């Protein structure tokens, strides 16, 4: 004990120096946006690289599974083409007034078990990824890009307590918000649907298109249960997802080219 006290008495000022510098750096990172973003940026670059390498390794063992799912996806799209145009004809779609672009990306890291889940994708500002872009998978929406550096971007998953997405019940025209309250990775809550609405189990919930992030009518899930408390004006609706987040690998980032225009007019 005596030795410990002597040790501190001798080197106390060095410890004080280290302590004060740590305090300074905590203050710097917490109160200065510039330094904070650089700190986040470089830590993302390092961890992003590591996750990418790990993902490459994992990918190697799931190649056939991925190939299968891509085949299924191709077949589904081909079926649509056949339905509309007949196979072999060239298709001309006038897409000049369709403001959404899709950027394919791969998930290199994700969490699903915590209260606030995030994903990391392997596309960054070089590939035109910006914050506030929507991210969808084959079976529905995934989340919203939160921040992006040159090579990677972090996506706020819909399985996050901060996530809030404008949604509607398809063909019925009632609008509400999708949130994640319980810890079940398959179920979300749809709130703000008034009790005078006619809701049925199995109804499809899709994006409303009111936000600038997602185009309308993107699949979110189906209604599993709904109940109204006495005196409450809104339903408690549980929506079941079709996405299995733990198996996600390929996603699409939605680039709304008219986002800025819509935002500008809404701010005005």
């Amino acid at each position: 004990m005596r030795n410990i006290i002597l040790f501190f008495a001798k080197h106390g000022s060095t410890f004080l120096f280290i302590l004060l510098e740590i305090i300074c750096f905590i203050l710097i990172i917490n109160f200065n946006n510039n330094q904070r973003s650089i700190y986040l940026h470089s830590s993302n670059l390092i961890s992003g690289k590591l996750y990418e390498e790990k993902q490459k390794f994992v990918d190697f063992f799931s190649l056939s599974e991925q190939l299968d799912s891509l085949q299924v996806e191709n077949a589904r799209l081909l079926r649509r083409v056949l339905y509309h145009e007949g196979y072999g004809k060239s298709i001309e779609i006038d897409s000049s007034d369709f403001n959404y672009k899709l950027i394919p990306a791969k998930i290199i890291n994700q969490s699903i078990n915590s209260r606030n889940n995030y994903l990391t994708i392997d596309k960054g500002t070089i590939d035109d990824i910006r914050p506030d872009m929507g991210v969808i998978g084959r079976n529905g929406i995934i989340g919203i890009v939160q921040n992006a550096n040159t090579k990677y971007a972090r996506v706020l998953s819909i399985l996050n307590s901060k996530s809030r997405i404008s949604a509607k019940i398809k063909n019925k025209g009632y609008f509400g918000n999708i949130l994640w309250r319980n810890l079940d990775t398959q179920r979300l809550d749809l709130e703000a649907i008034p009790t005078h609405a006619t809701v049925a189990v199995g109804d499809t919930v899709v994006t409303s298109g009111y936000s600038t992030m997602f185009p309308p009518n993107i699949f979110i899930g189906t209604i599993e249960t709904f109940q109204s408390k006495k005196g409450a004006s809104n339903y408690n609706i549980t929506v079941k997802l079709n996405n299995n987040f733990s198996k996600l690998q390929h996603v699409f980032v939605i680039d709304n080219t008219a986002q800025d225009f819509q935002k500008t007019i809404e701010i005005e």
Partner: protein
Amino acid sequence: MNSTITSNGLRFLILLLIQVLALKGIQLDYSFLRYVVIIIYPLFIILLPINIPRSLLLLLAFLLGISVDIFYDSIGVHAAASVFIAFCRLFILRLLEPTQGYKTEGSPSAHNFGLGWFTTYASIMMIIHLFVYFSIDAFSFVFILDILIKTILSFIFSMLFLIVHQIVFKVD
């Protein structure tokens, strides 16, 4: 003893006020002079008595740095640099110790040790301070060239202030 506390306390206040009220506003707008940031408050740390306890030295440096930061809206940046030179001060003083040792208990000033000695000592302190400050400000060594240019230019202008101060005022 009391006069040491009073004079250092006054120096703390006056340097802080000059720094944040006058020097902060100076923005030279002519080609390379744009890089110049005049910083004189480390003079307080430089002139603290030689035999001051190290912990007190570090705490005072932290206090001064944070005070400057509050006005510069850069919480922690000046403080980190100040604490760093306060830590280095002992080693620099040891390095520059005259052959007969430090015989005074007063400040390591030009009045006590000569202008030449003071200039060397203050230069080392200021170079370290400015380099650390601009590095933390940029927060990445990607901008190393930028940091070095700023350090050197700001050093020249800041040192002018320090030397003039030492010629005009006799600090015991």
